[in-house]
Structure formats: C-alpha cells, structure tokens
C-alpha cells in the first residue's frame, strides 16, 4: 500500500515533461491517470525514483476531426473517449471499447495515452487501436515522430517509445460505416479480459486484434487474410490464434485461451457482418 520513496515533478507542457524525463534518466516515469503505474508502485513492483506528473498538461486532452482520421490527445480520459460524439460517429468501435475499461472511476482517471504507453496486452485500448490501424504520435527532445500501432508493441509492457519520448497523440482512421464488434470475455464485469477481440469489416477489408493473447496486443492478420481470400467467417475465425502466443494464468489455460479466441473472433465477425 505504501510505495517506496520517490520525487515528484509536475510538468506544465509536453516539452517540459520531456526535459524532466531526460534530466532524471531511466528511473523516472511519466504519471498520467496513474491507474496502471500507481498500483504497481504500491505493490513495490515498480520503484521509480522520480515521477513526472503530466496530468495537468491541458493541451493534450482533445478529440478532433482531422479529415481522414480522428486525432485524440494522449491525455484524453477513457470517459471522454467513450462519450465523444465525434468518435461515436466516426470510430464507434473505439468509443465502445473505452466504455469497457475498468469501472467508472477508472475511466474518469485513466487516459488513452497512458493505457497505450503502458503496453499491457490485457488492456482494451492497445488492441482496439491496433485493429483500427492507428498511428501514434510521439514527441522527444528532437521533436515528433509517428509510429504505426503494428510497430509499436515490442514485448510485455515494452513499446517502441524511447525512454525520453512521450506519447502525445493517437490518430485513428475513420471507420466509414464499417461493421464492428468488441467482444470482451471475463468472469467479472470489471476485470481485464481473459480474451478480448476488437474487429471491423468493410467490403473486402477487415481488422481484427486480440486482447490478452500473448505478451503484446496481437493483430490477427491470418484472420483478415483468410477473409480477403474469401474464407467463411467460421473458417477465418479458426485462424484466430495463428499469430498469438497466449500464456496460461489463473483464469485460462493456453488451450482454453486459444479456443476462446476462435469462438470470440467468430462471434465478432458475425456481429460485424450484420
């Protein structure tokens, strides 16, 4: 319950935050909503010596229509993603997935950028933005660069972010009326998914990503490939775990997870095809 001692710095801007992180090196961490980091610190599984609080960097909380895509500021809270009229209209899959994150209290504190930067394979939004073909905008001491979601996740809680870089924006392509589905399978309503599926289909194209089916969020490329080559939903769904390396845990064995992924992908594609 009581974290190890740490210093606390508050940044007023992205630039200041990046400068502070650069100054304090590897042992510093950004603090946004705190809903992934603080529990780890309380259990003393994470012991950063400096926290750089970016919670008050106001100009990073927004949802903007940018033509072909929607731009979402990294500090936008899950509740604001869930309720955004722009997202509901243009990227309903993401707004819906955000409504499944934790409980109402978590959604009012946690941020989309924090969730993606934490790169937890069991979180809903990394996989959902991956399925949607999002691009992440990151900012470092030398300016901004863009990383495609499919290149971002490198390992368990590891991403392509450099230690002195900060995720500042998520660009999500508009869905243009695509059918979609978000399947979250868990034992209690407010838990992380045992397996989750974010999927969309539009004419010949599709995107399917899996939650908690490996050390990173998983793009089920084999499913989309099968669909585009004319496979039935059922046959395509059988390829659900081809790109995954699921782990066993208290809630699911590897075999069960693999089975669940196939069932849930089939259900997701059925719903998205309606």
């Amino acid at each position, binding site marked *: 319950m009581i974290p190890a001692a740490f210093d606390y710095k508050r940044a007023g801007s992205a630039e200041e935050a990046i400068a502070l992180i650069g100054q304090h090196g590897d042992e510093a961490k950004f603090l946004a909503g705190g809903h992934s980091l603080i529990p780890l610190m309380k*259990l003393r599984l994470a012991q950063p010596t400096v926290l750089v609080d970016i919670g008050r960097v106001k100009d990073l909380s927004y949802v903007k229509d940018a033509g072909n895509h929607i731009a979402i500021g990294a500090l936008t809270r899950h509740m604001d993603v869930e309720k955004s009229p722009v997202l509901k209209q243009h990227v309903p899959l993401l707004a819906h997935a955000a409504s499944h994150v934790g409980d109402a209290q978590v959604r009012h504190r946690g941020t989309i950028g924090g969730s993606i930067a934490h790169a937890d394979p069991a979180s809903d939004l990394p996989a959902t933005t991956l399925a949607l073909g999002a691009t992440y905008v990151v900012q470092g001491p030398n300016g901004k660069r863009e990383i495609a979601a499919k290149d971002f996740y490198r390992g368990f809680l590891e991403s392509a972010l450099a230690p002195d870089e900060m995720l500042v924006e998520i660009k999500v392509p508009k869905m243009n009326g695509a059918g979609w589905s978000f399947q979250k399978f868990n*034992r209690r*309503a407010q*838990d992380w998914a045992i397996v989750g599926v974010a999927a969309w289909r539009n004419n010949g194209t599709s995107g399917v990503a899996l939650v908690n089916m490996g050390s990173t969020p998983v793009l089920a490329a084999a499913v989309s490939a099968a669909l585009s080559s004319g496979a039935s939903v059922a046959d395509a769904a059988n390829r659900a775990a081809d790109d995954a390396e699921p782990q066993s845990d208290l809630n699911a064995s590897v075999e*069960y997870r693999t089975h669940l992924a196939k069932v849930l992908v089939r259900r997701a594609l059925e719903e998205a095809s309606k």
Partner: protein
Amino acid sequence: MSITQERTTNVIGQRMLRREDPALLTGEAKFVNDLVIPGALHLAVLRSPYAHARIKSIDVSDAASMPGVVAVYTGKDLHSTWAAPMPCAWPVTPDMKNPAHYPLAVDKACYVGDGVAAVLATSEAASRDALDAIDVVYEPLAAVIDLEDALTDRTIIHESIGTNKSYTWNLKVESAEGAVDKAFKTAAFTVSERYVQQRLIPMAMEPRAVAAVPQPFGGDVTLYSATQVPHILKVMTAITLGIPEHQMRVVAPSVGGGFGSKLDVYAEELLCVALARKHGAPVRWVEERSENTQATIHGRGQIQNIELAADKDGKLTAVRVRLIGDMGAYLQLVTPGVPLLGAFLYGGVYDLPQAYDFSCTSVFTTMTPTDAYRGAGRPEATYAIEVAMDALARTMGIDPYELRKRNYIKKEQFYDAAGNPVGYTAFHGLNYDSGDHLAAAEKAMQHADYTGLRKKQKTQNVPGARKRLGIGMTSYFEMCGLAPSRVLASLNYGAGGWESATVRVLPTSKVQVVTGTSPHGQGHETSWAMIAAEKLGVAPEDVDVLHSDTAIAPLGLDTYGSRSLAVGGVAIAGACDKVIDKARLIAAHQLECAAEDLEFAKGVFSVKGSPDKAVPIAAIAFAAFTAHNLPDGVEPNLEAQYTHDPKNFSWPFGTHICVVEVDTETGKVDVLKYVAVDDCGNQINPLIVEGQVHGGVVQGMAQALYEEAVYDQDGNLKTSNLAEYLVPAACDVPPITTDFTVTPSTTNQLGVKGIGEAGTIGAASAVMNAVIDALSGLGITSLDMPASPNNVWKALQSVQGGKQ
C-alpha cells in the same frame, strides 16, 4: 387509527432504516485506522516468502539504523515476552495435536505470510521501508499443500508433534450395532460422492487494524482492534501476555465486516500490546490488502466423501461421511471445531433413521491457518448432502424435488400426538425446535415457476444447444444461535454460549441497552433498539445501544455463528422483563395497589379494570432515580442485567432455487434467477433480514462460481489481491427474489432464529446443482467449485472430446 392501536406489535417487524448507515455512508464512522493517537509508533511485520523454511539467521542491523526506526525484533527476541502460545479454544479431542504457535516464528516459518520479524518506527512508511532492509537466511523445505499427501507424513511440518494429523473426531449414531453397514448392504440405491470445498479468503472490506495504548502509570492497556470478539480478545490477551485481566480493556470501534475472519486472536494484536508496554508508547498496525490475504485466516478447505443409502422409494436409510479438514499451518481460535459445527447437518432436512457415520480427520498444511468463515462447517455439510441428493435423484431417474419431498421431516413431526410443539428429535439427539420444510419449498417453487422451467428446459437443452438451462435447488437447516453452554461442554469447547444484556432507564426516561454482542455490519444498534422499544413501550429513537467496549459492556461473548439475535437479542428482552418487574413494584407503590393488579402496555402501568389509574414508565424511572419514595426493599435506579443461556440451538431453514444458463462454447455460467425462501422465525426488522440474505447468497454464489484461494506447488498464494481473488461486485450479482415463511422458534420468548449465515449455507449447493443440471444431459455429473468458464469448458471437453 383503531387497528394500529390494537396491534400488539408496534416496533418489531417494521422495515426501519438502519441508524448505523448515515455515518457509514458519509465516511464519518471511525474505524481503528481513523483514530488519532498522538505519539503512536507503527508496527510492520516481515513475513516469510517461503511456505516452509528453517530460519537460519536474521540480520536486523541495517533496518535498525534506518531513519525513523525505533526497534526491530525477531521471534527469538520476543520469545520470553509470551506467557503462553497463541490460543486455540477448542481442543476437540483429548489427543488433539496443537503445536505451539507464537506471534513471530522462532525457528521455522510454516506458511507464506508467517511473521518472522517486526519493525517499530515513527511513521508507517518508515516501518515498511525497514522491512526491505532485514536480511533473513532461510533454508527452504518442501511445501505441504495437498491434504491427502499431508496425511502420509512424508514431510512433517511440526517436528514437536511428529505428525501432520491434528485429530480424528467421530460421530457414529446407530439404532443397533452395524445399522449403517446393514443399510448400505440392503439399500435399493446408493451414491458415493467426493467434493472439494476449496479454500476461501474472507476478504472483509476493512482489513484488520490494531492500536494498543498503554496508560502512563499503573499498567492498564487499551487495545483497539477491528475484531468481532472484544470480550474473548480481552481474556485471551490477558492470558497470553500475562497481564491481569482487569488491566486489559478492548474496544472494537466501527468494524468493516468480518465473516468469521475477525473471530480470532491474532499475532498483531499481541505484538501491539506487548510492544506498547515495552516501549511505553502507543503502537498501531494496519493490514495491507495483499497482507490480509495471507495473514488473516482462510475459510473452508475440506475434502468430503459422502455416501447415501436409500430404499426403493428414495427414502434415505443411512449417511456415511468421511472428511479431511485443512487446518493450515497452525490452530487458530476455533480452527479444529469448524468441521464439527457441520457434523450434525450431513443428514440435511431429512427424516433420517439412526444410521449415521461421520468422521473427520484434520491435518496441518503449509498454508494460511483456516478458521470460521460465514457458516463455518454448515455450508460445507449442506453442500455435501444437497449435491449428493441431486446425484441420488439422477441415479433413481426422478425429479430432485420429488426426492426431497419424500424425505423432508414433515410439519406434523414437530408436534406430539396431542398437538403440542415439542420439536423434532433428530437421529443425533439434538432437537429441531420447529419447521415446515415443505411449505418453504413450495413457496420457492412457485416463485421460480419450477414446472414451467422444467418444460422450458426440455425444449431448450437439445443436442447442439449453445446455451443449456439448469435448475438447482437446495433445502437447508442452519444450526445457529451458538450456543447452549451444556452442548458446547459436550463438544469440549473452551467457553459457554450465553449472552449478557443490561437495560437502564435513565432519569429522563431515555433508555440505554448494553449488549455483549459486537456488531461489525449487521445493524445491531437498530435491531436491539427496536427490541427494547417494543418491550418497554418507548420510541426506538429514545433507545441507545452501547457495545463493543469491555469497559462499557464488561460481559459478553460477542458476535458470530448467527448468535447475536437468538442469544443476545433474547437477553435484551429478558433484561427488559426484569426492568418491567422492578418498575411494577414502584408503580404499585405509587398507585397503592398490589403489583399483580397492574398490567403493562405501551409503556404505561395501569390497574386492571381501572385504566384511569395509571403511571407511565417514564415517571417510574424518575421516581427510581430520585429515590424519594420507593417501596421498602427496592433499590434506587431502574436498571437490570440479564444473561441468556439458550436452551437449544435455533434452526432456521429454507429452500433456495437457482436457474442458470451455461454457454457450451465458452463454459460461462450465467445466473438467470435466484429465489431464496427462508424461515428465520419472527423477524425484528425485515429490511435487515433481506440484506443478510442478499449478502449471504452472493457469498455462497461466489464460492460456486468465482472464489478460490489458489496455491502453487511451492505453497505460494497466487490469489493475493482483488484482481486475482475474484470477489463478485454488484454488477456481477443477478436479481435475487427473497421471500419468507414464519415458523417461530419455540425455545425463546421472541420466537427468533437468526439469519446471518443462511444465504451462504444455501447458495453454493443451489448454484452447483443448477450448473450440473444444465450439463448432466451431456454426461457431466460432477464438477469442482468454482465452476469457472475454464473448468466448465474442460469438463465439456472431457465428455465431448472437443466436439460440440
């Protein structure tokens, strides 16, 4: 209105809102950790990361020199502090093995979480930081986590007793020698089942917290603790620490739930008192959640083998039970007695002849000690008989309700030939005070639409159905109101089962009720005020209830085992009677009549036949206070103390029905409907009764579907936080239909029975019977708890070979 005036009951039976709730809901209630105690030192306990390890050496020097650290102690340092080992109050057999258990381990740690060193520091943060700096060298030994393996004594946990077996306790009742064997030989039908009661973590919302405050002179100590049992704790702390009992005061402030887990005497309570005395300063400690999962007792933990014998009609002719009980690493306060509390209930609510053979062997393991958890022994027993009854019905090919109907103790059997309510004397000799099982079951069947559900099931559960419907029922007895002291004596329990109450009418006619019960969420203040208000004819808001402080309520045996109303509430009614008896003498003196010519109603004494000659109890109270004009031999003040020792247990009962759908693709169980028809006799406050049923049902359902303390082969607890240990939340709970029948208890003046554990006792078996009922058509006839999606899917795989 005349109808209201003619009612004999004005207060009892009303749905009064709980007076406790405004403070709880606004966060104003004060729990131990909310107490501001100037100058308090903070205790932190270093816990063993090994399930079983010899402590080779402990180096505390780095920790001791850290900023804010006042002292660091090992088990060796404090060994001479203890006058006695930690207490177990229930030596169930003369040869029961009970290894010495001290607040800090000395040579050996016996479970992950066993305390090995203690830090005192000036802040909580400093105490935690110092734990990381203590260097312990362990020699890890093999963990013992399997009960049957433990019994082989392959790895001995406590060398001092030379075995892992603690005791074997038998209850064999036969009408004639060999009756059980004979019944099984001649039975038309038998079933033999094995069930595992998984370990459960009680997970009270408030973890434990302790503060010990020594007085500057004279040696008195006040111990504040999040406990269910301040009175028991006072005696036990005095004995264990060698403190004169009159110098110990124990206070339980607001306590956030217990479910049995705070019915204990814990290491941290003893450490805080001992170190507060040693340092002459207050010492406090609060448990972390993950610490709570390891350092506070667990519940259940049994392997049950049950066999039923029945005649051609399904009438039970014998029951045989073999239990193995998981004691964990040590015996806590009532650990060994928990299986015994269930020993009388494996015959269920059925008219069983004297052919009963129960035996329990209990064993030590290298896991957190177990102890009483909501229902304590009785949910386990009910689960075994009720799931086995369904198995018997399947074997016979008859409806499970039909089988139960053929076996219920009938309403007539609670009466003698002349129609007097004499209770039903069961095969084991205990007398069930009253009951009408069929009436409760019929009511539940109607609420659930049982016939309609069975029809729907036939059409829904066709081969290949993605969702299968299942209906499960359970009919239970709750043996509660712990307990008649003489019965406890026969079970070798170390105390009585009475409860005490003092009722005091103050000069201004406000009333103080002092109770020995110790509420921690049950709403006693509301209910006890209602009882006194009813008896004395005053308004409930004019009654204050004092409790949970041994200086204010010196006599009591506290709250557990659904005893508070049936024992403590009845004691309050008895104390009110004594107050009225005394007031009657003073009233007769004032009205110049004989005491027996007075009647007392609605707070007023009046002369029979001359209602205008009357005096209210308020006036009597003032007269008793001024003492200006009292009859000879009557002491001033209007106060009485009464101790109630129940003549019998109370026997609430009921029938619960659960309806589930099982997704055959994912194995997920959805509870569609839950009906609970309970009979707890007369109800003081139906709102509180319903709340107890809701909470109990959810806790029982949680055992069936969600909760399990999982240990790995090395004895590490894998479910040590609320993300991994799945306590269902409000949004996971299905609608629960509650209804009641009312069969008053015949053995106490309020006709009450108790309701705290009923839901838990009924729910787990009702849910599991429903799940198995949904799947039995596919060949699945047994399933371990919890029926998690993974477990159900695995069972489906085993019968279908993966084919849908």
